């Protein structure tokens, strides 16, 4: 019996070394471990073993069984690995250089830029408001202190409508409504589409976007305005840009300023984009005129504030390098789609 076990042991070792497929291995398993396999046959002889040897033989048989099982499962893993390796190696190669489409359309460049700028303001604690495009003469002119005989009210400059209203000529048309809504403590920006009855050329559109902001509180001063404008532009341009303030004139602010930024195209040396001056007029601003505050029910003796406008379209042109403003309203998808969703 002992000898038989040893022979079987040896024979298995030889056979298992020859196996090279999952099928062969399964056959081998059945040959030894099947119901009528060699180990089972061996067990039939076990009955005849003398009682005193039973313990020793039993242990040997068990050891053999264990060994066969272990070996088979070991081999099984090896064979699977080999097969997987083979499958991987023989796989049909994919041309990884083939192009893919991201399927992404595009946002209008104004949407992209305005969102970027809005995010800067929101991070500075500003509220964002929408205005109307059709406005009353009062909101567009009277409320923001534009005198009755001001040239801007002429038909040549303003799109008047047959019901007496007009297409708003500037985002300031929303100031009165916003000041009334928020009261004397506010930080609000209001982007919007504006209209002027102008002839079109590369630098002029009759339909364009502006972004306006106001800050009102007690003790708001020109020094605050300067600080704010510099920080804000840093946020918008994501770098320190050189700015200069000049006296300006707008009916809705007093004092008024023009803020120029050093020209992004030539870096301040002077080029056609900046008319040779090295500066780009970017941002009219000033302390809100007391009449504007008064018209909105805010006491100008107690509260002061500043307002600023950003030519959104000009910013778009600066940032995209487009040199003709007319592209923006053209609906030319082949051009617009290149902007995707980021600039």
């Amino acid at each position, binding site marked *: 019996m002992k000898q038989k076990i040893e022979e079987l042991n040896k024979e298995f070792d030889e056979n298992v070394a020859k196996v090279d497929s999952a099928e062969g291995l399964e056959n081998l398993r059945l040959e030894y471990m099947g119901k009528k396999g060699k180990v089972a046959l061996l067990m039939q002889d076990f009955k005849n073993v003398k009682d005193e040897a039973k313990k020793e033989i039993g242990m040997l048989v068990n050891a053999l069984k264990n060994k066969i099982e272990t070996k088979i499962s070991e081999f099984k893993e090896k064979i699977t690995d080999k097969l997987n390796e083979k499958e991987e190696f023989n796989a049909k190669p994919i041309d990884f250089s083939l192009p893919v489409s991201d*399927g992404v*359309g*595009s*946002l*209008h460049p*104004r*949407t992209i830029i305005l969102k970027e700028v809005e995010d800067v303001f*929101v991070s500075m*604690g500003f*509220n964002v408001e*929408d205005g*109307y*495009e*059709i406005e*009353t003469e009062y909101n567009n002119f009277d409320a923001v202190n534009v005198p009755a*005989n001001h*040239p801007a009210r*002429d*038909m*040549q400059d303003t*799109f*008047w*409508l*047959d*019901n*007496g*209203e007009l*297409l708003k000529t500037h985002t300031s048309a929303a100031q009165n409504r916003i000041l009334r809504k928020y009261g004397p*403590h506010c*930080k609000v920006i209001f982007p919007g*589409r504006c209209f002027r*009855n102008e002839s079109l050329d590369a630098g002029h559109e009759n*339909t364009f976007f502006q972004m306006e902001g106001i800050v009102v*509180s007690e003790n708001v*001063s*020109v*020094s*605050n305005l*300067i*600080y704010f404008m*510099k920080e804000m532009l840093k946020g918008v341009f994501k770098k320190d840009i050189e700015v*200069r*303030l000049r*006296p*300006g*004139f707008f009916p809705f602010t*007093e*004092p008024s*300023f023009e803020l120029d930024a050093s020209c992004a195209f030539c870096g301040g040396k002077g080029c056609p984009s900046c008319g*040779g*001056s090295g500066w780009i007029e970017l941002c009219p601003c000033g*302390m809100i005129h007391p009449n504007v505050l008064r018209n909105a029910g805010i006491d100008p003796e107690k509260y002061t504030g500043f307002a600023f406008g950003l030519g959104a379209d000009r910013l778009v042109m600066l940032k995209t390098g487009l040199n003709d403003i007319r592209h923006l*309203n053209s*609906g*030319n*998808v*082949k051009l*617009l*789609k290149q902007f995707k*969703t980021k600039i």
Partner: protein
Amino acid sequence: MKISLNWINEFVDLKGITIDEINKKINQMCCEIEEITEVGKETSGVVFGQILEVKNHPDSNHLHILKVDVGTEVLQIVCGAPNVRVGMVTMVATVGGKVNGQKIKEAKLAGVESYGMCCSESELGIGSDDEGIADIDFKVTLGQDIKEVLPIDDVILEIDNKTLTNRPDLWGHYGMAREFSAIFDRPLKPLPVLELAKFKGLKKVKIDVKTDKCFRYSAMSVANITKKRLPMPLRIRLNYTGMRDINLLADITNLVMLELGQPMHAFDNNLVKDIVVREAVKGDKLLTLEGETHEVNPGSILICDGKDEPVAIAGIKGGLKSGITDETNSVLFESATFDSGAIRKTSRSIGLITDASLRYEKSLDPELASIAMARILKVLTTIDKNVVITSSYSDVYKKKYEKVNLTIDSEFVSKRIGIKVTNEEIAKILTKLGFSCKILKNQVQIAVPTFRATKDISIKEDIVEEVARMLNFGLLQPKPLEFSVLPVEKNREHTLEYEAKLMLAEKYGANEVHSYIWNYDNFNKEHKIETKPVLHLLDSKNAGQSSIRSEMVPTLLKFVSENKEQLDGEVRIFEIGRCVPSLDENKLAIEEKHLAIAFASQTKTQEELFFCVKKFLVDFASNKLLLNLEFTKEGNVPNYIHKVNSCSVKNGDVILGYFGLVNPATTKCIDKKLNICVCEIDFTKLCEKEGYKQKVKVPSAFQSVKFDLNFLVDKNKTYGEVREALNKVRSKILVGINFVEVFEGEVLGGKKSMLFNFEINGKDHTLSSEEIDNFRNDVIAQMAKNGYALR
């Protein structure tokens, strides 16, 4: 406007101030300098010379050979000018010198040697005369460089007019000199004038002002004018500051205008003796100095002679007939002030913008009229000693501006500028700018000078500006804002607008466009699109674009049509914009914010496009708004939308808009091969209400059972109807019913089948086969009741 620094220097000593400093400070403290030009720099080696001999050139019929004495030697110069004569003193550019950048070399002209060039004023850039060489009529030393005698070297500042809109006082050199004096802290010299009171005893000019639009009209007559031209230094000045020199009298009025900002006019006194200022009536017209006839609108101001004949369009242009000529030797000078709005209106309506009208539009100070008169007489009598003044200063002064007096304290100013300023500093700054200040009881009492009081300065905040700019706010210390820190509420609709756009771009591959707010009448007509605009522009520069859009899809269809070829028949565009579909009871616009989408394709089917649009609507509503939109056949669609394949979009009871195919008529006008699906909904209404998120359900740990049922339904039944019947199935074990597919085939006869997948779960136990069968049978029975048999 051009400013000559030589001219400024006459009133304020600029010695030692660099151009750089001027550029910086004037820009920061006063107005924008667009360009600085150093004139005369490109001219050198030009001297005075006298022609000693004139000989005709043997080989040319217009050239002459001159012998010119330039002090140190006599040069042979070949010259083509027609006005050469022996004894004439002229300007000679010598060899090695430069004339406006052009280098002078020895040359052979038609075979004859020439050692220099005799120059015209125009060649030197100092005069408008280009018909002959300069004819010097004043005493000079031969051989002397012209730059030693004449102000050839100058610096010209080109000021951006826009930045002077509110400063009528800066439209002349003297006003600008006042700014220089304040900015650089140097004294301003008084303006030399003739004392007008001296002529009180002379006869008056008869002036009848019949309109309130003329604030002041003053006139004075002068006779025995013997000189014909302005002295050369003054002519150079005119030319450098953008004017041409014409003749003494025209030039002198221009000179005073450029100096003081007050336009003046000179009438030939033989033709115009009395003055009537009146408003034009219909048919009034005038042949102006330019030789053009202008008919002015009634209400425009006209200057007329004693016979009520128009002789000038007030504040804009003089008439040809009464104008001065080279023969005029007695004139009537006008110095007047008109209503700025009236001048602007007339100037725009006749399309004539002049140096005078530009200045009048800025609201000139009427006080300036008498100063200008006193000045022009001073200049004229200095130039021409023979002049006789023949009238007293005749003045009709109808509208005097009220004096502006302000009281301000340092605290008011400091609070607004953001740095501490004392009353003394305020007074000092203002005094330099021509204000009168008195410090009384801790306050500054300010009398605003008339030249700043016509519209520029009227309130205390205006004073803040004066102080701030003179402190050079470019140098003010920036100060952070003091503000309470509170969370900021997001503008929901505004945020959603961006999210909708981003979703359409990123997930649906669509391109955002911006279009105009008006309809394109021609496009709409050609494409059988009817719109119902309720608002119209009164004046549009573009014909057929004057009605305000009541809906946005037509413009998107125009863009589809324009883009289809470029984009190979695949256009997906959208816009969120405004339109006005109706007016309220006061006829005010009810403006709506709409989302419009147009998906067009040559390759995708109508159904694919249709469901792509629907998918977006459902996607956006359920994921960004947490809303379940409904789609129904109620509500109307525009005429260009498919009557059958379109539907309304509803939230609760509110119809938000529609989506669907463009009807065949309009589609075929755009492109026969194209399928187009569009959508237009009221974005504000869509975003108005936010839905709620359904509670999260934890999936049962027990195994679910899933099975399919396929129902036979009539062809005209919709999914919605079948689903409604299914929704009536109620059971504790039901987890969900999912639609799988619809099948239409000949095998089904006139019917179609709809396949649904059911999921049931016992929640706290594994379902028995009996439970499963019972549920299944219940569903079948329920559906049978509604007429839907199993297939």
